[in-house]
């Protein structure tokens, strides 16, 4: 994978997510994640180690930009890790499943994005639910969060269809090998 291209794509995806999120959100609490679609795309095409590091980097970006508002809404806390770990687990799952997937198929990216998002959100909810037990700065209600995040995951999968139509032809730009007989190796 050509890392500068991935970093530029990540910059664009996270920037668009920050700027557009409330314009494309569905209901008060659900929005697609362009960043997680990018992570899924990379996990579908890139070498294993590249995909895992890409997921960690994207997850760290999302973690740093997020914040949990404390009770009374006078402060907020940023937690580094939940999204990064979730995205890495999701990417690992996609890496495991991609041998069974026709990557160029228009539905491959949405299906894998759904799996990756669900896993990412499960890890995020798990981390915050645990943390909420002893950290007064985190006010977290797991069940509504799970529902909202499931809707967000479905919405991300829907958004992955048009994004996939744009991204799949760009595989060579990222340095991904599009032939099935040859595998990229090495860092």
């Amino acid at each position, binding site marked *: 994978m050509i890392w500068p291209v991935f970093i530029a794509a990540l910059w664009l995806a996270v920037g668009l997510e920050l700027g557009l999120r409330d314009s494309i959100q569905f209901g008060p609490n659900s929005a697609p994640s362009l960043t997680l679609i990018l992570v899924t795309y990379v996990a579908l095409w890139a070498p294993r*180690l590249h995909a895992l590091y890409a997921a960690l980097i994207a997850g760290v970006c999302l973690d740093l930009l997020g914040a949990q508002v404390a009770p009374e809404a006078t402060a907020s806390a940023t937690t580094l890790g939940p999204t990064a770990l979730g995205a890495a687990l999701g990417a690992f799952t996609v890496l495991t499943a991609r041998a069974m997937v026709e990557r160029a198929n228009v539905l491959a990216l949405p299906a894998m994005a759904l799996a990756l998002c669900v896993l990412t959100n499960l890890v995020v909810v798990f981390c915050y639910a645990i943390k909420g037990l002893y950290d007064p700065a985190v006010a977290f209600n797991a069940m509504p969060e799970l529902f909202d995040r499931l809707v967000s995951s479905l919405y991300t999968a829907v958004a992955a269809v048009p994004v996939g139509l744009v991204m799949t032809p760009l595989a060579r730009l990222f340095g991904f090998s599009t032939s099935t007989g040859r595998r990229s190796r090495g860092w």
Partner: protein
Amino acid sequence: MQRGPLSPKRLLPFIIMVLCVFALAPSSVTGWVENARVPLEFVLRPVAHPVRQLAAKAAPAERPSDPRIADLQERVDQELLLRAQAEQRVERLRAMVADLQAGLTIAPDAPARSVWASIVGVSPDPREGIIIAGRGDTDGVLAGQTVAVARGVHLVGRVVSVSARSSRVIPITHPRAGLINAMVMTDDPTSGFAAQLIAEGDGTLSGELVASAEGVEVGQTVRLADDAWPASSQMVVIGRVTGVGHKDNQRITVTVRPDFDVARVSEVVLRIPTDPAGAPSAGGGAP
């Protein structure tokens, strides 16, 4: 593949372990990671800000109306704000005099200065509901003590965290903004009924009137009257009553919708107390 103790493959489990520790460590221990957000937001701003402005132009936060009526309404709102604040100041001074006479110490009113700020983005997770204003620590913004308003009198939300060049605002229409004590202003601008409002998550707030109230109608202005919020923000407009209902216990419920879609504003004015000692403490109680 590079081999050796620092090869990417060997580093990966170590990085994941570190992230696990960070993910579960209390926020008081890992609070310093927020500093890493400053360069990240700086790098992302060239994409997020123009996209946000374009989106705001395509779907303005202000509810559409005749521009002349909107202008007149804005002037009326400004005048009513000044009047309501003056009334409240008089009441506070009266109370202060009474308390001083009783030998109690009263914190003086906290004066505030206004700083214009562009909204440069939102948090990627809609459940957090945070909007990011392009002013921060270097402009004197204080977390928990600074409020964001639109058009000078319409409450947008409260700043919950500040970094060097940006600050995060939780809009009043987000459920995590918590309970807000407000005053439903009746036809007589000097009086009103106290209400406790909570965001419904659909852009409105709702709540019960604290006392049995008569004369509450759709269209009446609702203003902030909450001691847990900074003094400089008292009596700013939360929105207008869009629904009035009655509960079984004879109490009146109101639904309030802000005049602005506060989660989608493109610019705000931050009202920063110039005397932070006079501002309410975090977690201050309702009156």
